[in-house]
């Protein structure tokens, strides 16, 4: 009834080709952005902004980057955290070593550096496929973290190898309150998510999907394999790099290379699988699932079951419930949460008269 596109006629190519062709989607997105930009900063307290929403957005961005590579271009990657590290450390050094470097440019340059590194480690994808390709990205993961730990120039010769992000300032405005940090991250993530959405439905995205579905066939119809795959690595690493810079600047503040370990890479991979491989909204849903669920379980256990269970059982129970829920959701919908949402939309379209 409410969600039905009947009667929405497209009378020009422009209107047919817009990002969200259905009016209800457009309204939904506008409402969502309105809530995120206006309502949330006003309503949410510091805990929600700093402890939950900012990490959620940062990890969503990283998951988005990985989803471009793995979900759209079909190249499995286990090195997302390393590309985040490149972004974080590169931004830090650009800010440190170039006077008057604007913050956003430093973020972008951090992303570009990550993209360049991504291209280098993407080269083997031209020959190696599937699970075997994971080795190239694993090599990136371990080599980059090793290099960042070893070469103290990257961390400005700090004895412990940690970097401490500089203050965030754009045109004289200092982003230090939780609200301002949140809005900055949200703006960057929104812009990049819309860019990604646009990219994957354009020629580039179609080429990626063709390569993903069958690269030989894609080559036969004239898609340049090397160009397409490396572009996917570059774009994906760029997104991860910017996410890494945001992780350092807007979220953690002081980071060590170890913080970007394999666990984080796996976590980002979990996000896109749970959320939905090859879907922009899936990156957000998956990030919500992986970031928020353990916290929610912990709050629940600490508050409700605090006195009832021995502490170690309570903590392990959280882990078991988390694992169980992953399996449950996959059995219900193996294509991820985004697919679940799509099915809901299909149902809504017919509701309330399904026959």
């Amino acid at each position: 009834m409410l969600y039905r596109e009947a009667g929405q006629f497209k009378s020009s190519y422009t209107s047919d080709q817009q990002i969200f062709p259905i009016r209800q989607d457009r309204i939904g997105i506008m409402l969502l952005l309105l809530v995120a930009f206006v309502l949330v900063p006003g309503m949410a307290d510091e805990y929600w902004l700093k402890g939950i929403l900012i990490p959620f957005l940062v990890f969503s961005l990283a998951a988005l980057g990985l989803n471009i590579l793995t979900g759209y271009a079909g190249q499995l990657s286990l090195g997302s955290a390393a590309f985040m590290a490149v972004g974080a450390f590169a931004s830090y050094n650009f800010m440190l070593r170039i006077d008057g470097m604007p913050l956003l440019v430093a973020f972008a340059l951090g992303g570009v550096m990550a993209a360049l590194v991504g291209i280098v480690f993407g080269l083997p994808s031209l020959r190696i496929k599937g699970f075997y390709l994971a080795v190239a990205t694993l090599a990136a993961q371990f080599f980059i973290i090793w290099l960042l730990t070893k070469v103290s120039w990257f961390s400005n010769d700090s004895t412990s190898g940690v970097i401490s992000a500089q203050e965030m300032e754009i045109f004289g405005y200092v982003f230090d309150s939780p609200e301002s940090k949140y809005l900055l991250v949200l703006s960057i993530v929104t812009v990049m998510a819309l860019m990604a959405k646009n990219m994957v439905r354009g020629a580039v995205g179609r080429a990626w999907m063709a390569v993903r579905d069958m690269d030989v066939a894609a080559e036969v119809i004239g898609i340049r394999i090397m160009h397409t795959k490396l572009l996917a690595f570059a774009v994906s690493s760029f997104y991860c790099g910017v996410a890494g810079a945001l992780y350092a600047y807007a979220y953690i503040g002081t980071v060590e290379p170890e913080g970007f370990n394999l666990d984080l890479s796996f976590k980002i991979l979990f996000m896109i699988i749970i959320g939905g491989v090859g879907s922009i909204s899936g990156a957000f849903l998956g990030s919500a699932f992986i970031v928020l669920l353990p916290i929610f379980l912990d709050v629940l256990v600490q508050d409700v079951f605090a006195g009832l269970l021995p502490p170690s059982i309570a903590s392990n129970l959280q882990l078991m419930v988390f694992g169980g829920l992953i399996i449950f959701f996959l059995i219900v919908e193996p294509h991820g949460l985004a697919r679940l949402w799509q099915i809901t939309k299909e149902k809504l379209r017919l509701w309330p008269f399904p026959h």
Partner: protein
Amino acid sequence: MKLKTKLLLSAVAVSSVLSSSAVLAQANEQFIGLPSYRVGPYASGGSGIYGGWIDYMNLVNARDGGVNGVKLSWEECETEYNTARGVECYERLKSKGASGNSAFMPLSTGITYAVIDKVAQDKIPLVTIGYGRTDASDGRVFPWVFPLLTNYWSQSTAKIKFIGQREGGMDKLKGKKIVNIYHDSAYGKETIPLLDVQAAKYGFTVVHIPVSHPGNEQQSQWLRVRQEKPDWVILRGWGVMNPTAIKAAAKIGFPRDKMVGVWWSGAEEDTVPAGAAAKGFITAGFNVAGTNYPVIKAIQDKVYKPGNGNMEDKARIGSVYYNRGVVHGIIAVEAIRTAQEKFGKGKVMTGEQMRWGFEHLDIDAKRLKALGAEGFMPDMKVTCLDHEGSGKVKFQQWDGKQWKVLTDWIDADKSIVRPMIEESAAKYAKEKGITPRDCSKEG
């Protein structure tokens, strides 16, 4: 649309958070948030430390009725030793209780770094006992951070002193060779400059050999040790790297009583898995193992007898990590007491008052005795300049079944450590644009 599910989840979590904070906000209780880790790779250490800490607070509540009548309350938050989770816990625990979180002690260097910039804004003392950022010992640059008792640099000088003692004098160190086996991370790298400085000063050679995380395979590193033929090995390990190193030392026939570990290499969790190979292994510690101290006896008596103990495995009472938790409890409680003496007995202290309490913490030998912790932990006196407050460690040796105290308290060589701390802190201050406090003006 993409956020719909998220909002739903959020709504449930919000209501849960709200309902809980309402229950907890009781007037006359001093709240301490515990960012614990009871699952994940380091759960064995976490359950011991947080268990001992909670037991001590239970003891204070049960025996003394709290601190001058102010009961202690606490809540755990599971971090899994993960930095991002730790930040969430910091934010979650921050404003609970009557006056917010009294002190944040994450027992993880990664989490410490992540909240170091936040604590000054939120006015919560960040207390890191035996880990964390070494140069934060300079209280002028880091007013809100307290790396209490001892830090890695102090410990490194105490170790060299100990080795010198064993060799029969610091002058005997000349020409000796020491291998530093370290965890290849921010934590492990931290003592390299210190060792180099001391090597130059005392005339020994030092070889640094890194072990990559997690360190469950160290054959090549120890073959290199065999090739180097050192007189002593310093083990700067963490987690599974420790028993593996001890085993590997046995494999190349390196004597374990020439191996000196940091305090994160020196618990039952590190020696028991290594079995017979660990016999003779020596480690530094700012607390000792054993139940033969009045404070532990009191816990057994007043907390475990009525059945309020936190440890499921009672055999672990008196283990190194458990006792370390008790030390955490003692320091937190003494800081509350110190703050109350200044700002009013029987009142709930705010974060700012707690900071004053930590900065004026003075646990001398007499006070230690009154606490029943004589010889259990070193005496300490914190000042505005010196946020470390002690620097003393004891060395313990594993006899195959338990830790045996080997030495008395050995003090750090402050003449080496302090200038390096000040230099590093000044660099941080410059990078961050912080103007150091003038300690002569602090009350």
